[in-house]
C-alpha cells in the first residue's frame, strides 16, 4: 500500500469515527430534549481537532509500520497518486457545494444557528467520508 493510499484509509476511518462520536455526543447532550439547546460549538471544535490529530497519528504509525517492511517506498508518491487525489477532491467539492447551498437555504429560512452550523459541519464530514471512499475505490479497483 502506497503512502497516499494509507492517508486515504486514515482519512476514511477517522471520518467515520468523528461523525459517529459527534452525533453521539450531541444526542447525549440533548438528553431527550431539543437538539437546538445543545452547546454544540465545543463539541464540534473538539471533534474537528481530534479528527485532525487522529488522522495524523494514524498516518504516522501506519507509515512507521510500512517503513519497517519497505523503507524505500514508504513515502513515495507518483502521478497516479495525484490523479486519485484530484478525483477525491472533485467528489469532496461537490458535497461541499451541496452543504453550502443548504446553509444558504437555511439562512434564508431563518433557521436556528444549530442547524446552520451543523449542516456545514455535516457537509465537511460527509465530503471527507465520500472523498475517502472514492480514493480508496480508485486505489483498489483502478482509475482508467
Amino acid at each position, binding site marked *: 500500500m*502506497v503512502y497516499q493510499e494509507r492517508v486515504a484509509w486514515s482519512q476514511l476511518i477517522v471520518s467515520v469515527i468523528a461523525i459517529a462520536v459527534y452525533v453521539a455526543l450531541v444526542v447525549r447532550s440533548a438528553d431527550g430534549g431539543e437538539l437546538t439547546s445543545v452547546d454544540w460549538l465545543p463539541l464540534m471544535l473538539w471533534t474537528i481537532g481530534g479528527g485532525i490529530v487522529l488522522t495524523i497519528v494514524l498516518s504516522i504509525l501506519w507509515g512507521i509500520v510500512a517503513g519497517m517492511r519497505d523503507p524505500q*517506498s514508504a513515502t*513515495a*508518491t507518483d502521478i*497516479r*497518486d495525484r490523479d486519485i487525489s484530484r478525483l477525491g477532491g472533485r467528489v469532496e467539492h461537490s458535497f461541499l457545494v451541496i452543504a453550502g447551498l443548504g446553509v444558504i437555504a437555511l439562512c434564508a429560512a431563518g433557521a436556528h444557528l444549530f442547524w446552520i452550523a451543523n449542516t456545514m459541519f455535516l457537509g465537511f464530514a460527509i465530503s471527507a467520508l465520500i472523498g475517502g471512499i472514492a480514493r480508496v475505490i480508485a486505489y483498489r*479497483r483502478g*482509475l*482508467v
Partner: protein
Amino acid sequence: MVKPTLVTNTIRSRREEAGMTQAELARLIGVTRQTLIAIEQGRYSPTLEIAFQIARAFGLPLEDLFQYPEPTQKRDD
C-alpha cells in the same frame, strides 16, 4: 463504478521476458511498484510520458506494448 479501459498491454510478459522485476521497472520509469502493478493489470491508464518511458525501457515502439481495438464497422441501412 470505474469505466474499464479498452487499452490493453503486454508489459508484464515483456518484463518477464527481460528478466526484470516490478520494482526494477518501476524504479526505471519513476513510479511506485503499486502503480506499475495497476498499469500491468489495466487498472490505471498511464500518461503518454510514462507509456513512452516504459517503451524506451524495453527498446520497443509503443504499439508493441499497448493495444487498442479497431472500431467495429457499422452497417449502413
